[in-house]
């Protein structure tokens, strides 16, 4: 896949970010940009601030300095427009034990303001291998299966920016392949992805820029 000479306009720009966690300063003056179709992989030892950086990009954690811009506009506090194009996957899979896999997916998408038909929802769950567990309360699902509910949400979510925290944890080989297919489709349609992960993120043949945090 040849990369056009002129740099595509940067969709996500983070300019000289700095953030402290208690007395420890995690990063300072960090700048990061990502254009459409690009994946950025945050690497670094545990506790180096990968998760905090992701949460700063999403606007969850308050920055001490610096600014995050999405398609040229700085992100404000109550920024519904930016969040319409953001899909954030944190450490916890945000799955309710008392609801079934389908209900969890339904409410997760409604919370994202995304409306899909029942058929699309069921197809997505089949695609991620949960076809036969639709009516099972999520309490009975394994950690990997809960992650797959998250994958189904990503499959149906039209967000252009993916901020993923350790997306491959608890996924078996088949699950990781599912994720890489979804990521490839997301990038090829001009989406952006920033992920904190230890597993190789780059889909076969693709490229993922790496940013190392001390």
């Amino acid at each position, binding site marked *: 896949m040849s990369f056009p000479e002129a740099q595509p306009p940067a969709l996500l720009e983070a300019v000289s970010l700095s953030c402290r*966690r*208690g*007395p420890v300063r995690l990063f300072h003056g960090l700048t990061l940009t990502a254009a459409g179709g690009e994946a950025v992989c945050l690497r670094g030892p545990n506790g180096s601030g990968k998760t905090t950086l992701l949460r700063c990009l999403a606007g969850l954690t308050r920055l*001490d300095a610096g600014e995050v811009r999405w398609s040229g506009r700085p992100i404000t506090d109550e920024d519904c427009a930016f969040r319409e194009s953001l899909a954030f996957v944190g450490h916890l899979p945000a799955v309710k034990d008392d609801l079934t896999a389908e209900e969890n997916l339904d409410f997760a998408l409604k919370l994202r303001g995304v409306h899909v038909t029942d058929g699309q929802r069921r197809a997505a769950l089949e695609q991620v291998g949960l076809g036969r567990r639709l009516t099972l309360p999520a309490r009975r699902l394994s950690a990997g299966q809960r992650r797959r509910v998250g994958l189904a949400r990503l499959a149906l979510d039209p967000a252009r920016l993916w901020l993923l925290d350790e997306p491959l944890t608890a996924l078996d080989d088949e699950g990781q392949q599912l994720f890489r297919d979804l990521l490839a489709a997301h990038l090829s349609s001009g989406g952006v992805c920033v992920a904190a992960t230890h597993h190789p993120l780059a889909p076969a043949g693709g490229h993922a820029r790496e940013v190392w945090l001390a």
Partner: protein
Amino acid sequence: MNWFYYASPATFYGLAGRLAPYFFLLAAVLTGWGLYLGMLVAPTDAQQGEVYRVIYIHVPAAWMSMFLYFIMACYGALTLIFNTRLSGMMARAIAPTGAMFTFIALWTGAFWGKPTWGAYWVWDARLTSELVLLFLYFGFIALANAFEDPRRGDRAAALLAVIGVVNLPIIYFSVKWWNTLHQGASVSFKGTSMHVTMFTAMLVMSAAAWMYAIAVTLVRVRSIILERERRAQWVREAVKA
């Protein structure tokens, strides 16, 4: 003067250290003068006899308890809006002194009430809202210390102080409404005509309470800064000196 120069804990630590002794001195002088005026010079009150002299600490304590909560809410707003570290520490530094003044207001109110109204605790509008204010202070202190990360405690307690200060007048007027509904208008302190020395003594004691509160807050915020920045390099020099 660069306003934010003193907003950084390191520089404020030095400034507070230099200012605190002066405020303590001022507090001592004003207290001495106020007590001299109030206890030794002021005449007996026509209606209440000598027990009214408790007013010289009851009223300043009540004023301080409400005003310090308001100042805590202002520092809290600063913390929430500008995310400054020092304002959160200042709010924490004020809280115990505010709670102390509230307790003193309640205690002196009770010991004044016994000879005047015949009972230590009277569900008077002011005393009752003072009691609720004491719970608000406990809530602030408990919430500020309930988190691992002190910054998280600062922000949560700051928001509670802002919510509290908005609710304080509502609580006061609802208690006042409730009180007049059940007992009719209770005797008000302002009934007694204030002899000029009495009034000056009370003002001087209020000023003394002010100076004391500032002094104690400055000293306490220095300890908080040391606790928060114990790993910082500047702390080592500051402590060695």
